[in-house]
């Protein structure tokens, strides 16, 4: 089977060209089936995975940002609200204390007024008592001085005017 023959350095043979052509085409299909498609599939799968993960990460970041701003707003609102509540409470307390003080003042004024009134009454009563006492005494003195009996009823007007004059003098 083996011969010692060799081809010339350039020898064209149609069938050998055809064989080489078929070899290259076979290699093309074999490499596509065995090498390129599996590797490409794996690479594409991985690329899709990575893209998906990036997408997920982006979405999560967005959600987190939204939640953050929401909480920030809520925190700010809460502060404002607390301030409002405190202010309202302060106002209420102020009003209440003002009311209480006003009531107390009114009460005190009323008390003072009633006390003054009762004092006045007492004073009037006392002065009336004194008046009648003085009238009695002065009538007795006058009886002794005049030597006759003085009818208290007759001289009442005179005595009263006298006492009033004394009072006016006292008041000055």
């Amino acid at each position, binding site marked *: *089977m*083996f*011969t*010692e*023959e*060799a*081809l*010339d*350095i*350039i*020898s*064209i*043979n*149609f*069938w*050998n*060209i*055809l*064989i*080489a*052509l*078929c*070899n*290259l*085409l*076979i*290699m*093309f*299909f*074999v*490499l*596509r089936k*065995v*090498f*390129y498609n*599996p*590797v*490409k599939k*794996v*690479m594409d*799968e*991985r690329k899709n*995975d990575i893209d998906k993960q990036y997408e997920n990460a982006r979405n999560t970041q967005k959600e987190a940002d939204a939640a953050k701003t929401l909480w920030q707003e809520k925190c700010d609102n809460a502060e404002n609200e607390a301030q409002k509540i405190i202010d309202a409470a302060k106002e209420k307390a102020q009003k209440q204390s003002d009311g209480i003080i006003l009531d107390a003042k009114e009460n005190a004024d009323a008390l003072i007024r009633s006390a003054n009134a009762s004092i006045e009454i007492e004073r009037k009563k006392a002065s009336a008592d004194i008046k009648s006492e003085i009238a009695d005494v002065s009538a007795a003195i006058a009886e002794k001085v005049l030597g006759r009996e003085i009818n208290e009823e007759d001289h009442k007007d005179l005595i009263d005017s006298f006492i009033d004059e004394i009072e006016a003098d006292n008041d000055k």
Partner: protein
Amino acid sequence: MTKRKPGFIIVDILYLSIAILPLLFGMALKIFTNPAESGISIHGARIFFKAPFILGGIVITETQINSLVAMLFILGMALFLTHGISKIPNTKRQFIAEWAVSKVEGLVGENMGQSFMNLVPFIMAILSLSAVSSLLTLIGIYPPTCDVNTIAGWALTVILFIEYYRFKCGPWGFIKSFLEPLPPLAPLNLIGEVATPFAMTLRHFGNVLSGSIIGALIAAFTAYVSKTVFGALPGILSEIPFFQIGIPAFLSLYFDLFSGCLQAFIFSMLAMLNISSAFDADGFEKRRAKREAKLKLAASQNSK
């Protein structure tokens, strides 16, 4: 790395043997069938089998055997690299596989555009076949790229793709592409069309052939020089070709390793450029839009 299951390792060994055993077979074939040579002998592939047939007869040579070796090697490596591939990489080889895929994809995307992404495995096939075939010289067996028939076959495959993409714009687009930029220039376009596979074939073939010829010349030259310089030494010392140690190996680093990879890259680059220049993307888009509009119109008429 996690500890692998024994089944995984057995499949690994199987795939690696698909890649390695053909290489050993090729080396054995070379050793057992190569007659002893003396002096400079530059010839083509050794013939293993010959049968009379139409169109010059079927000739099976080292080229065909070694092409098969290279293909099996690529297949084994592809299987090995993609074995145990998963979404979350847990093998080092997956990085190599993904690196290769993304590199070729980048190359195709840059030179051809996104509409040619289904040609990425084809470019991979050209690159790997050409590079591995040229690098077969490193283990001492005949590189199939040194045979003009191999390269011609590849160039014709590229032409098949070129014409396929040219025809994608319709029969009228196919004819019109030859009439550009002016109708009288059609013969020149035709000549250019025919010249493309010749140019691609001869560029690649010439580079590999010149490399192997220079390699043979240097081997003979260093043997001659060491014979003249050290021939006066007594006994067996005069028989040792001292200059053949190191120098040819160093030069083959360029001619085999670097040039082999470079020619593979250039060939695939030319294939990409020729295919993408044959495809009129705008015309194709227009044609498709028109066809879709027609389909829509037909559908709306049917619904009425």
